[in-house]
């Protein structure tokens, strides 16, 4: 069902195409849909979920990005607008953040442009001043558009920036790890600035977090600070996003992490 007729059958052939806006289509469709329970099917989905449990975060000394995102979503009770960049942190945000309202995950999906997280968040906050807005940034993407911290300061746009700083172009690094014989060519950022000092240079409070027990406090502190704030989460570098279905492969080729022995 799509409002754009050209989307129908473009990449996958539809058995039953319906052209119209989703709302219009659903309004027409709902009276014709019979109530159902799909008991066996929902049981099957539950079984799949127990065999492949989502949302697990393994216990480790290092600071995992998943851990930070879960803390963040707990602190905001899933009510914040989350604006992400593109890459590993984006996928983790999609996996570990929870959402309770429409239009609260804002991300560059089709084009996948790194750097969206800074200006995208500024725009979201301008449009929804009533909402807490978190910019979930990678250290790569953040450096593409961080000049617009000045815009946040100038206009007092109250966006909280969480940099997931693993010192790499994480997703490319992951692909090199899995598909390019661990040849980490051109994905390690050894010249990153000190993001805390950078924030301070713009007159924004900056907080560095390197340990798990600092996470909740830093998030709280940022949320209590009026105006923009930056948290530099120095996260584990060698962390891949799983599950992963390699590009062009079917679900049979899905890579998963083993279920951890102990979880956070």
């Amino acid at each position, binding site marked *: 069902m799509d409002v*754009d*007729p*050209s989307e*129908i*059958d*473009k990449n996958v052939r539809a058995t039953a*195409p319906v*052209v119209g806006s989703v709302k219009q289509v659903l309004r027409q469709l709902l009276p014709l849909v019979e109530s159902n329970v799909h008991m066996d099917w929902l049981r099957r989905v539950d079984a799949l979920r127990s065999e492949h449990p989502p949302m697990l975060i393994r216990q480790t000394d290092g600071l995992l990005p998943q851990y930070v995102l879960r803390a963040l979503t707990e602190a905001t009770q899933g009510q914040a607008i989350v604006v992400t960049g593109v890459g590993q942190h984006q996928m983790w945000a999609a996996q570990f953040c929870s959402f309770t309202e429409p239009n609260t995950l804002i991300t560059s999906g089709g084009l996948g442009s790194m750097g969206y997280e800074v200006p995208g968040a500024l725009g979201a906050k301008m449009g929804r001043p009533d909402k807490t807005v978190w910019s979930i940034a990678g250290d790569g993407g953040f450096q593409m558009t961080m000049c617009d911290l000045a815009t946040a300061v100038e206009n007092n746009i109250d966006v909280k920036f969480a940099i997931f700083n693993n010192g790499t172009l994480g997703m490319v690094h992951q692909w090199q790890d899995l598909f390019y014989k661990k040849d980490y060519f051109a994905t390690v950022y050894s010249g990153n600035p000190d993001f805390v000092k950078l924030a301070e240079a713009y007159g924004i409070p900056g907080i560095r977090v390197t340990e798990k027990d600092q996470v909740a406090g830093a998030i709280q502190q940022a949320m209590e600070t009026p105006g923009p704030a930056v948290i530099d989460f120095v996260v584990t570098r060698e962390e891949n996003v799983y599950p992963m279905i390699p590009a062009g492969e079917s679900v049979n080729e899905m890579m998963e992490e083993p279920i951890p022995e102990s979880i956070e």
Partner: protein
Amino acid sequence: MSPNGQHHHTLVALVEDRPGVLTRIASMFRRRGFNIASLAVGKSEQPGLSRMTFVVTGDEDTVSQVTKQLDKLIEVIRVSNISSEEMVARELALVKVKATADSRAEIIQIVNLFRAGIVDVGPQSMVIEVTGEEDKINALQNLLQPFGIMEMLRTGVVAMVRGQSGGRVNDGAGQGMELSALKTIGEKR
């Protein structure tokens, strides 16, 4: 029709006659990797509107996408795939062929056979004008080839559905985009 389902489709589009419209259409074809076998553009019966005839090569899915993507362009008012309809399709060609005193009579005979016309005669050449379906022009071209074709220019096909159906915007075609898009989808099943 070739073995892989590739064949010619004739699409007729009514478009706004404005600067940049052709670019937009050509850009869409290029960007989506569609091939135009021929394209003819000219004024329509309605002021401010042009009619374009496309001949597109491809399988059913490709042509369906071309039609839908054309429909999406704001300046394209209506597109129809008339390939399966009873239609009149014509192309005009000008052929400059070598003509000596010896060969001239034979060429004139061929031209007459095809109900073509001679529009220019020089000491060593003639220009022949022929109108007809693509096959007819191809056939004439083949027959003239041995004399030596110096230059040839073909306009590309223009096509129109036979009978009553009109192409005016207000002929129940206010929802042209929807209708034709849905039709394209329906046709494939």
